[in-house]
């Protein structure tokens, strides 16, 4: 119907013998000061916090009802007073101490359960059944039982914290182990690694992103469980924790101090997350390229 398309014209070959880079101009350019400042993580985060604080302050002043919403500055003043002259530092220390004990016990137990689960099939069944049963059970619901068994005091708190940490950490660690690639396993076996050495040198580091997220979830569960449990009872009024501090001040209608207690809870959460976990992440999974 139509003529066949004409052949393309024959063109000479081109070969660049020398590549001068003189005219290209800008190959590399330093970032501007603004770009560099906004590239820093903590600068952006602090900015967000400042904006939130300003909004709070504005709303508090507009409402002008310190019993309901004390403005930010008032809460900060109360926080300062309670820390320097009041019992807040003591209370915080008590809470953190119980938390560390409970968290450590929970993680250790999780390690035992996961070790069982990777080495035997019965262990796997045991872990998955127990996790399915207890993971959805709110730890605080066990508090009455714990009080019955261990009485008022640290053991009861440790018991509920262990319950809140154990299943989250064990579940994540186990699924992390299952996700380790076959090639990596074979490479490890190829070196002659077996048993506990295989778990320690190959499975644990390879599953570290999952283990770390389990530890983070476990930490958050533990912290909120502890504060909730302390709200219910204060161990004894002299050595109560942060939760008790909040409860006490609510009873005295000192709303600013209640907010100060809450702020302390939040600050500790932020510090653990952004100092401890962030640094662990930076030194491990990010450095290894397993996480962005």
């Amino acid at each position, binding site marked *: 119907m139509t003529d066949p398309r004409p052949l393309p014209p024959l063109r000479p070959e081109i070969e660049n013998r020398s590549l001068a880079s003189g005219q290209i101009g800008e190959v590399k350019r330093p970032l501007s000061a603004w770009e560099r400042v906004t590239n820093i993580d903590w600068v952006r985060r602090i900015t967000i916090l400042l904006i939130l604080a300003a909004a709070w302050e504005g709303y508090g002043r507009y409402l002008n009802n310190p019993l309901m919403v004390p403005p930010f500055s008032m809460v900060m003043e109360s926080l300062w007073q309670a820390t320097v002259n009041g019992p807040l530092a003591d209370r915080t220390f008590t809470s953190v101490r119980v938390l560390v004990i409970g968290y450590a016990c929970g993680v250790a137990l999780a390690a035992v359960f996961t070790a069982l689960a990777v080495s035997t099939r019965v262990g796997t069944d045991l872990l998955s059944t127990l996790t399915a049963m207890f993971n959805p059970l709110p730890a605080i619901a066990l508090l009455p039982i714990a009080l019955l068994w261990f009485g008022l005091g640290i053991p009861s708190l440790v018991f509920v914290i262990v319950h809140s940490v154990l299943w989250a950490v064990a579940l994540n660690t186990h699924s992390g182990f299952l996700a380790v*690639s076959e*090639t*990596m396993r*074979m*490479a490890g*076996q*190829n*070196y*002659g*690694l077996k048993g506990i*050495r295989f778990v320690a*040198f*190959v499975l644990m*580091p*390879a599953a*570290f992103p999952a283990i770390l997220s389990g530890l983070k979830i476990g930490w958050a569960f533990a912290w909120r469980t502890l504060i909730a449990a302390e709200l219910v009872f204060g161990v004894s009024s002299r050595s109560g924790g942060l939760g008790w501090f909040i409860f006490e001040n609510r009873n005295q209608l000192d709303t600013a101090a209640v907010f100060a207690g809450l702020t302390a809870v939040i600050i500790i959460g932020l510090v653990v997350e952004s100092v401890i976990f962030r640094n662990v992440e930076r030194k*491990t999974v990010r*450095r*290894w*390229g*397993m996480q962005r």
Partner: protein
Amino acid sequence: MNDTATATPASTTQPPSEPLLRVEDVTLQYKTAEHLVTATYRVSFDVHSADRFVLLGPSGCGKSTLLKGVGGFMKPVEGSMRLRGRPIDGPGPDRMMVFQEFDQLMPWKTVRENVLFPMKVSRKFAAAEANDRALAAIEKVGLAKFRDVFPHMLSGGMKQRVAIARAMAMEPDILLMDEPYAALDALTRRQMQEELLQLWEDTRFTVLFVTHSIEEAIILGSRILVLSPHPGRVKAELNAHQFTHREQGGEAFMALQRRIHDMLFAECLEAHGTPRGAGHD
């Protein structure tokens, strides 16, 4: 460069030595969710010291499974595999494996630590010696500049080089390579093949190499075991020690390539039973 790669192997001028690896009538099976698959059926071959022994075949001929058997990751249901006279019983660092996947390096270790690690855990070498060996092996594969870098910062070819360095530093009885260049681009693959031949020139290690590329088999192998698919059986065992990249495209090279191609293609026709176009419908 590769002058001696074309030299006649010692076995033709001297009485044949005791083989390093003897595989006799090995049948390997593995289970999938629904089936028990026979990957290889009564496969026998001998690998001698300093052989570049290639297992060649189409996918499904059980060549990778066979390599896993030699690696000790699978037990044969029948037959025996002996390395230096000892039956193979489980994986071990005397048979270092280079896998096809790039994720075989441990991401939490630097290049140097990755190479060092198997020497450390197998306690084959003293600490100071292991360190020297690791650095020398990294130097040899041309990654001296990258020795303190983590694997995620390397390209695929560089990762494979590290895996090869890691295996060679261990000085295993036999080096097992499971299509190590299959996932590389053509240019890098060719470069890596040349490097492997050069390394072999330097140290004359023994390597068992799995590939599905006829060309790669002829270039890299000194001896080629051609396997047929479903299940894998030995079709032929051929010599290819006289060929390197320089002979590629030459008459003898092409003839061998065609011969192997015909062997595998003939099997293809047999497997399908009827020629194309003679179907029922």
